[in-house]
């Protein structure tokens, strides 16, 4: 597998009321180009912190250790040809946003030189699992890398949150909110950006796209608002789409529609999907791989099929046992009316 990003020994510590809480502890995992990876866990498992760390949205007060390295497509001018294996994730419409990205350790330990936190194995050892082309890119970039070549939220990473009412601007039309992303990140002028917004509104299947462009978020239902949030998240053609409990506040029927929409958009645009959820059944239906988190640690990671049919860890089994499906036995039949 070709990694889109590689997380090594990631630890995130929140400081609250003078005490420190480790939200993530020594997490190492790779996310492959074009895969659908689900991260599941209960409250306090660290799953949302992982999503925020990847999107570089952690609060400034958080202490971050370890590294998140991105392997984004190098710009054509750098010479080294990308190996064919990384090509399928690039849709033609995104040619204009090619970017180079050096390894980007996100460590920000106060008082330390950030370069000292670069993965030691940058050019050897650990690279064995990666393609020769990847190595070339990184060598080539080493001299030209600028600090602003790190992945950018909105452009390289699309983020869909649980509550679309909180992520959409209540006093800006839906059309403008989507067009703004295309204007900012794709360099489109406003008429082009609005045309793009209309296309996106059609793609997320909002009824009456012209009316939707002019609507304000409060005029839409919860499911429609989440469709708008998804349209804005994918407007700049991100490599990675992160959906953090994006369907949890929706009713079952709308949830199924939004999951189907995410699946379709990810396939059409060749995006990589990071699907954060508390629902193991939903995760298994959508993702190819599942990572199970608990108390800030990675319990196990594997193919979705294996995680649900042959979990290695007792905790995963307990999550599966706690799932109440439509075929599960009622918890108790003795509690019925005595009349």
């Amino acid at each position: 597998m070709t990694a889109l990003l590689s997380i090594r020994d990631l630890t995130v510590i929140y400081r609250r009321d003078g005490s420190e809480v480790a939200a993530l502890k020594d997490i190492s995992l790779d996310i492959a180009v074009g895969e659908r990876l689900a991260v599941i866990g209960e409250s306090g498992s660290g799953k949302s912190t992982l999503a925020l760390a990847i999107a570089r949205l952690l609060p400034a007060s958080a202490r971050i250790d370890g590294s998140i390295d991105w392997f984004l497509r190098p710009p054509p001018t750098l010479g080294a040809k990308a190996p064919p294996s990384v090509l399928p994730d690039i849709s033609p419409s995104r040619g204009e946003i090619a970017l180079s990205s050096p390894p980007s350790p996100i460590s920000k330990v106060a008082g330390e030189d950030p370069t000292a936190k670069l993965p030691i194995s940058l050019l050897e050892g650990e690279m064995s699992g990666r393609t020769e082309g990847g190595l070339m890119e990184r060598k080539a970039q080493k001299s030209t890398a600028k600090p602003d070549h790190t992945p950018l939220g909105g452009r390289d990473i699309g983020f869909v949150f649980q509550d679309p009412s909180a992520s959409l601007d209540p006093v800006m039309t839906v059309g403008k909110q989507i067009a703004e992303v295309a204007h900012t990140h794709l360099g489109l002028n406003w008429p082009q950006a609005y045309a793009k917004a209309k296309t996106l509104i059609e793609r997320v299947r909002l009824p009456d796209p012209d009316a939707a462009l002019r609507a304000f978020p409060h005029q839409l239902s919860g499911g429609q608002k989440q469709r708008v949030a998804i349209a804005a998240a994918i407007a700049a053609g991100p490599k990675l789409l992160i959906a953090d409990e994006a369907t949890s506040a929706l009713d079952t029927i709308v949830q199924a529609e939004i999951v189907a929409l995410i699946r379709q958009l990810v396939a059409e645009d060749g995006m990589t999907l990071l699907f954060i959820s508390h629902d193991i059944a939903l995760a298994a239906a959508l993702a190819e791989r599942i990572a199970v988190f608990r108390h800030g640690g990675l319990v196990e990671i594997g193919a979705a099929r294996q995680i649900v049919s042959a979990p290695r860890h007792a905790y995963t089994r307990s999550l599966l046992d706690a799932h109440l499906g439509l075929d599960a036995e009622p918890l108790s039949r003795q509690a019925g009316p005595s009349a």
Partner: protein
Amino acid sequence: MSSPLLSVSGLTKRYRRGGKTIAAVDNVSFHIEPGETLALAGPSGSGKSTIARLVLRLVQPDAGDIQFKGEDFLALGGATLRARRARLQMVFQDPLAAFNPRATVARVLDDPLRIHGIASRSERPRRIAALLERVGLSPDLAPRAIHEISGGQRQRVAIARAIATKPSLIVLDEAVSALDVSVRGQILRLLLDLQREERIAYLFISHDLGVVRAIAHRLVILDAGTIAESGDARTVIDAPQSAIGKALVVAAPKLDRTGP
């Protein structure tokens, strides 16, 4: 058949919005027997929560009749209504929103005991400790603030508060929807234990048919304020007849644990 504990007929609630009148609940009838769990399920906007509020008399219906323990519940007022309310309790999805977050656990449980005159001042600390133990919590939790305890503990406190007045019926509006699955199972078992031992009936409102199937005896499926179908919970879920019932069943996430 004994007389129903709660009997609702022709219940209707209309809201006016922008000159248009929308029936949030339209001519809905159902009944609940003592010690029975009746589930209300349906998509967002189907009227589930409005029915809960009508039954609790938090809002007034435009039409319809509610009989609770053989009395015309809508005709009650003043001291009689307050007295009957002790028998009809509620647990909501988010207990942090339902309680004063700075109140202590003891205060939350003291209120119903005091207001309904169930225990004297000197007796109440002992009653509070017993209630906490009844819902599987340590009495040591009493002095803690509501915002300091976990979501599962808070929902147990909400249940302890609901059973403090020895109710015959508890309205549970998405009461387990926000809980982690492991905690959810514990809370559902607690509800079943309480029902078995104290013969409490539940009006269980949920959008999750898996949870409904696990706990409810009968099920009413709502769509746009009207009853789409109703019957034995397992029968309805295993073979839904209405379009909305079928859609809810199809949309429920399925977990296939068989190997490849």
